[in-house]
């Protein structure tokens, strides 16, 4: 086969910056309803009229029985941890995303330990991934009861539901 290299010098490399462009996304209709509810500190889900499952955040079609999810439900802001992860402490310069160190942006703090959790809010059947605050990472367990932490001034955006915190002080 003539096209396979016989000698193998290092391939030339060209250094360069890669700019990630911007997009303007059209929000789905349900997402608009969801974020409007968040502004009122309510968590909106949709209910499948076929199997009765309530999904948060809301979706249009049930992934199990493929029927339209016509029902609207406000679910509880109290829920249960169904899965969790404890991150190692954040180290500045350890990793970059899109060429940016998350510590430099102020999004993460040096030495911070994050606990991303899956929450099933009471009245819903699905899990929402978000952050657990004000908890000792060593004492988190599956089945732990938590409640929503809201932004100081909800403005109708996803960030209104900041995360969750333990219902009872451990």
């Amino acid at each position, binding site marked *: 086969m003539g096209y396979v290299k016989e000698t193998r*010098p290092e391939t030339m490399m060209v250094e360069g910056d890669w700019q990630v462009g911007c997009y303007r996304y059209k929000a789905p209709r349900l997402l608009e309803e969801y974020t409007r509810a968040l502004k009122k500190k309510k968590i909106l889900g949709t209910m499948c009229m076929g199997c009765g499952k309530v999904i948060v955040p809301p979706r249009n079609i049930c992934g199990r029985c493929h029927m339209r999810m016509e029902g609207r439900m406000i679910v509880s802001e109290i829920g249960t941890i169904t899965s969790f992860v404890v991150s190692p402490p954040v180290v500045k310069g350890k990793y970059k*995303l899109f060429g940016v160190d998350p510590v430099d942006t102020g999004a993460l703090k040096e030495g911070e330990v994050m606990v991303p959790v899956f929450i099933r809010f009471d009245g819903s059947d699905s899990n929402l991934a978000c952050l657990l605050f004000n908890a000792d990472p060593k004492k988190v367990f599956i089945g732990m009861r938590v409640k929503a932490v809201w932004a100081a001034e909800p403005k109708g*955006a*996803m960030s209104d539901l900041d995360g969750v915190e333990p219902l009872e002080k451990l």
Partner: protein
Amino acid sequence: MRNAAIIGCGQTKHTSKRRDVSVAELAAEAVSAALDDAGITMKEVGAVISGNMQGFGGVAQPEQWIGDWIGCAGKPAIRIATGGTTGGSVAHGALYAVASGMYDISIGVAWEKHSDSKEAGATTGLAHVGIGNLFHALSYGLSLKNLIATTAVGAAAGVAVYQARFYMHRSGAGIEHLDMVAAKARRNAAKNPYAHLQWPNCQPSDIAKTDMIAYPFRFGHVCPASDGASCIVVAEEKLAKKLCKHPAWLKGLASYSDEENQLQSENYGGVGVLDPSEQMGARVSAQKAYSMAGITDPQKEIDMAEIYQPFPSQELIFSERLGLFDDATAWRHMEKGETDINGRLPISVSGGVNATNAIGSSALQRVLECALQIMGKAGEHQVPKKVKTAMAHGWGGVTNYITVTVLGDSPRG
């Protein structure tokens, strides 16, 4: 449909950095090896199906670059990208091309070149994927901290951690079982000359000594980011019988997507319902592929399986979901050594994705390794027992997509 069979297999050695070749040169190595294995040249090939993980490698139209390089000018070419399952879909594409009667011989080539990313691992590639899948969430007001902590950085690994927790909670498997799967993968990989993380005689205690990343995953549990390519040659019945002594025949295939397993994607609506380890897509694909293959009892009729297991928990989860073991029992069977290379039902004897992960190529490698076992060409990691039926699995998409391919030692009846 016509009968189709895999008659040639080619792979490159997988390593963390192949700085001596370009993307096209890397893919050409695998294609060349596969054509040599089948004893044909590019002239006889009717169609080319290629693929890698979308955006990874930073190349927009790799099929054009590779196409010229492997000498398939003027031939019909398709590029397939279905995330981690890309290789599985490429295999399906190549099999479809022949089984449909369109072409007598097709090739499927899949590749990944992680080292072309300047940032660690697959970060740049994930950035590509992230724009479509996650960035819209920022424009709807998701905070950067939440994006980083819950979705972006975790990527497949993040999903797998949650998934492992769910599985361990319901099945009773412990972290020691993850050590066992990872050690088995490293041991098996040591017998596979093309594998990446090779560790002869690796024991679970060796894996247990590695650092904890995020419970239950240790450093030793996680797959590498590999550079590599693989290629299969598919032929119709008459040609397959003429060209190959022991072709690996297509028995059944299926692929399904389960939106309930899609982690916060597109409309921010997809979050694993109740249990990300539920993997309904795997159940449905397996049922469909088995019924097409005439398999009624997969636990008895399948001789070996290659499961897409970048993280050790997934070998356990998927082997149950694909019907190889009853629910929540895979770890018990593994404890008894049933999934070892000389066990009752060997799983991922090539080392699997846990030892070698050139993402686009990974799911094609599963099909290729099953074919090698049926052809009897696997070499040192050949399963001692006669392999009549083998099953290859792929997991990908946005953690929601499954491919299942069943190969056998005789044509479909």
